[in-house]
């Protein structure tokens, strides 16, 4: 194959992968007259911020007014941030115990990773039943707990591979000098694995931020519902207000894309359970 053909093929591939994102991006900035056109407007000439401000498209899909996104955004930020911090702290502590003291051994590690792979739909039903008995449904707290079930195992897992890369002599020397394991953990391991901690926190944030099924089942209104649920609600009408919907989608997507690009090196380690160090 000549280089020309290779680049042609590569361009076609890029077009396929990027066009849907491009379409979302431009639709978010299109005024309502340009949402439903034939032929579709591929390169918009008039751009507007109105879709983000809730000023456009009040007449479509039978919506009297566009639902305010702010509470959903707030819930998403709170839930994803707390989940990210909690899962990093819990994961780091457990990963240190497993990496250095082999607590639980292979079976415990096996159990952790199995939980990570569980189908969310299978945990959604029992979690719903428990939390409804505890009268905790529709709270941010419940959603954080539910998200921890799959973020904490992954954080632990990835951090084990990070900690294993730190020479054992470092903390063993500290232990010999009389430091407690907890001291060695806080003063030697944690500072040395800062990039790993950041990567793990980011991964947990991304997962919680985009999680849909558990949020759908465990929350029921703006008190605790997150952005993905907000997006799901829009899609029901016969004629959907594409502009505001795309704008909300963009708000949901942008932080994730930024974080992932920053953490690209570690993303792959997370997604393959450490099989690829990246």
């Amino acid at each position, binding site marked *: 194959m000549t280089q020309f053909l290779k680049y042609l093929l590569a361009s076609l591939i890029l077009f396929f992968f990027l066009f849907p994102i491009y379409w979302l991006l431009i639709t978010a900035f299109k005024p309502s007259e340009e949402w439903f056109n034939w032929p579709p407007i591929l390169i918009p000439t008039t751009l507007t911020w109105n879709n983000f401000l809730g000023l456009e498209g009040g007449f479509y899909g039978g919506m009297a007014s566009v639902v305010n996104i702010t509470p959903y955004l707030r819930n998403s930020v709170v839930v994803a941030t707390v989940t990210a911090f909690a899962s990093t702290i819990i994961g780091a502590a457990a990963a240190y115990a497993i990496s250095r003291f082999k607590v639980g051994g292979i079976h415990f590690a096996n159990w952790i990773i199995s939980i990570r792979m569980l*189908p969310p739909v299978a945990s959604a039903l029992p979690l719903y039943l428990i939390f409804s008995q505890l009268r905790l449904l529709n709270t941010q707290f419940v959603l954080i707990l539910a998200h921890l*079930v799959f973020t904490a*195992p992954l954080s632990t897992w990835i951090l084990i591979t990070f900690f294993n890369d730190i020479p054992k002599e470092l903390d063993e020397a500290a232990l010999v000098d009389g430091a407690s394991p907890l001291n060695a953990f806080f003063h030697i391991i944690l500072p040395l694995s800062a990039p790993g901690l950041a990567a793990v926190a980011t991964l947990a944030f991304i997962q919680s931020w985009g999680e*849909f099924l558990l949020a759908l089942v465990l929350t029921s209104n703006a008190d605790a519902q997150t952005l993905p649920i907000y997006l*799901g609600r829009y899609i029901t009408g016969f004629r959907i207000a594409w502009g505001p919907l795309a704008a909300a989608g*963009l708000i949901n997507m942008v932080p994730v894309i930024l974080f992932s690009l920053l953490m*690209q090196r570690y993303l792959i380690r997370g997604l393959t*359970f450490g099989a690829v160090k990246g």
Partner: protein
Amino acid sequence: MYLHSRVSAIILILPLVLVLASLTIYPFLNMVYMSFHNYDLAKGGDPKFIGLGNYLAIFKDRLAISSVEFTAILVVIALPLEMLFGMGIAWLFRNLIVGERFMRSLVLLPMMVPAVVAGIAWKMLFNYNFGPLNYFLSLFGISNISWLGDPNFARLGIIIVDLWQWTPFVFLVLYSGLQSMPAELVEAARVDGASSWAVIRYVELPILAPLIGTVLIIRLIDLLKLFDIIYMITWGGPGSATHSFSYYIYKVGLSYGWDVGYASALSIVLLIVVVFLVNLLMRVLRLRALLEL
């Protein structure tokens, strides 16, 4: 000193164990219990023991069987295509002279898009009257396709979206594998007169085999869990054409119906399959060596 370390280690691991145990072990036992009972939240009343009744009902449930069928179609069609395209793109990009890093970052974007947002984007693309997809097809003389109204096209649509979102993942893993491969191996084969196909077949593929296995199983499990995109794009429709097994469980137990007993039985079946696959994954990952346990 040893005892002291042991105690510290257990203190450190305790939070994780508490969170996971309280949120998985009790719910799981509860689910097993429910799966042997007739219990429907919509009808009320107490759980009534019916033995294997819920499990036997699955075989007579036309919708359950068709959701297994669609899930099987997803696995049989989407999985090999994702693997092939992912590999193809990895090899193509590796042979580009310039711009490979930049283009790699761009190809990765779809898998970073939250599933719900991907659903919105594709729902717009699939639109019958105004969608860009039908527009592009019309340029080739193909008349408008009812992507979401026709059962077969709706199924094809879900497959396309999954390909779009997860081929980049396969690509990324295999590409990283190719990158970290010792250059001397390929060089040596070339010097010995191997064709580029022979290099791929006899040098690169065998080295990549564990990675390919890892990706294959991860993708397989993910396909069994497919839910978000279906909820956003087709709502399982038209009719029940795009009910995946996960979507059907949701429908039975958590939305249109509240048949906890039956949904639990369905979930247990799904769990058994997934746990089997996870164990396979452990073998491929060579867990003990990977975690240095």
